[in-house]
């Protein structure tokens, strides 16, 4: 494949190859979800060109990769901030104060759901049940790191610690 800006790094391609190996011969398409995740991690978000590159790599039509990228919530189809915060506001989290957490996040960051701060530092998204309701309200940072019991009063310190620890 020619080197284009959508081309993924050797490390990403090796990671995708490991995913492909999980599925039977001729079923490379099964690795599309992981491949898109890996591509998103490298690029920060999924541009149409990136999605097309992944499709070509897996030898599936670009539209099939696009369908997957648009169907699942955790893919970002436009640029996001350095730290993407996803707060669950579903019932178990709402019962434990997620609405107040949401208000505190929006106030502290000065953005609404789906927005990114002008400095490109933060993106805020509303999420659906993450399956960790004993720790409600739950926030996931950059799709990987789960933080539990994030009540409104913790938000200033929480944001500070994310800034200091780069999302961890």
């Amino acid at each position: 494949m020619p080197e284009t800006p959508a081309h993924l790094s050797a490390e990403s391609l090796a990671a995708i190859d490991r995913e492909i190996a999980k599925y039977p011969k001729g079923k490379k398409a099964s690795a599309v979800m992981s491949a898109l995740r890996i591509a998103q991690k490298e690029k920060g978000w999924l541009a149409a060109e990136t999605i097309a590159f992944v499709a070509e790599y897996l030898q599936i039509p670009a539209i099939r990769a696009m369908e997957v990228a648009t169907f699942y919530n955790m893919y970002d189809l436009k640029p996001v901030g350095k730290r993407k915060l996803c707060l669950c506001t579903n019932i178990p989290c709402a019962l434990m104060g997620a609405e107040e957490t949401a208000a505190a996040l929006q106030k502290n960051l000065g953005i609404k759901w789906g927005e990114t701060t002008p400095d490109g530092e933060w993106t805020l998204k509303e999420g659906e049940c993450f399956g960790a309701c004993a720790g409600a309200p739950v926030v996931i940072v950059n799709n990987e790191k789960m933080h539990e019991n994030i009540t409104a009063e913790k938000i200033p310190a929480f944001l500070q610690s994310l800034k200091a620890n780069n999302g961890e």
Partner: protein
Amino acid sequence: MTRDGYGLEYRAGENDKSETKAKTGAMADEVIFAPLKSGRDLTVLENYRQTGGYSALEKILREQTPPGELLAAVKESGLRGRGGAGFPTGLKWTFIPRGLPTEVYLVCNSDEGEPGTFKDRDIMRKNPHQLIEGMIIAAYIMGANAGYNYIHGEIWEVYELMERAVADAEAAGYLGEDILGSGFSFRLHNHHGYGAYICGEETALLESLEGKKGQPRFKPPFPASYGLYGKPTTINNAETFACVPFIMREGAEAFAEMGKPNNGGSKIFSVSGHVEKPGNYEVPLGTPFAELLQMAGGMRNGAKLKAVIPGGSSVPVLPAEVIMQTDMDYDSLAKAGSMLGAGSVIVMDESVCMVRALMRLSYFYYEESCGQCTPCREGTGWLHKIVRRIEKGEGREEDLDLLVSVSNRIDGRTICALGAAAATPVRSFIKHFRGEFEHHIRKGECPLDKKAA
């Protein structure tokens, strides 16, 4: 920032209910959380082995136990699917055709996204090898040589942990070709979801595994005849598989006796909401709700119980006076007018506005409808829109009838159960808390706001 009480280590007080045991008379943590009592980190394979782990599998492979005998044990145990439907596991496993020259797949559904459900996450991060051992035994019974564990997208850390656990099991010779020299081969891989509630529906999950949008398939054909890549496939919930090593080691009878007739074994209940100690509680099926509530530390700040959704957001809500008289098993909850579902117990105290709660739930189904069937795609949008206007104080007199009518027109008219799942909360909330909805419509305000003011 995370609460340490839900870390990987076993902490007396969370899983060991020995104090409450005497009080409630209920056994706790006897099946899936039992090895945690050793205090060892069970994510380490050798530690799991030292609690008796993998011994059931080793014995089966050493003695080449006929799969039919093992299947009979699963049937006798009374084990029913722990993912929500409660279908008898042994019976499900008989549906897989035997002796065909074709690949058979085994799939574990760990895509728990039903609001209020968080047990599979704890099974995987606290006792991953019991799930793996259960899957290998199930694969041996059904002659499956390949399997996939589909893991909920939002729990990345657990996915990574499972990747390590599978690699460790492989290195120890429990997974792969010619397991322990038995001639039986089983390859297991983890598949990471990426945020779609619908993929918990088994055929949507299969589509997703094949690298497509997670849109449910028409049934029949059922996965047992046409599943992953068109091959015979069995799909079970993680908790279901994790029960299997216990049944093999301790016997079907020991498992069955733990619960009630037709409701064998223990069940992990995920208790969330307004309790003092939200968390997972593994208790025998048939444990009274009142005891479960006590285990979870009772109501938070001593508040009064208003309502409980006993099995995840898709099952009917029950008012306090009903649930307090109900036992937590499939049949008792059905009799009470609800369902056990996945054992996801959402507890609400009297500060909760039921209209607002329903508004949030309706939004969830609207957001997560896959869009394939018109009644669900359009209907969930209408349900949310109508509940929202009631909540905003802009409801109309005819809205409650309209909500029930829309619900009835979704339910039963869709390919999968998401439509019914969206309709059920609407009907049950209106049925049990009609006065609260009417107050919003007639007065244009929430009765709870007034109380607070």
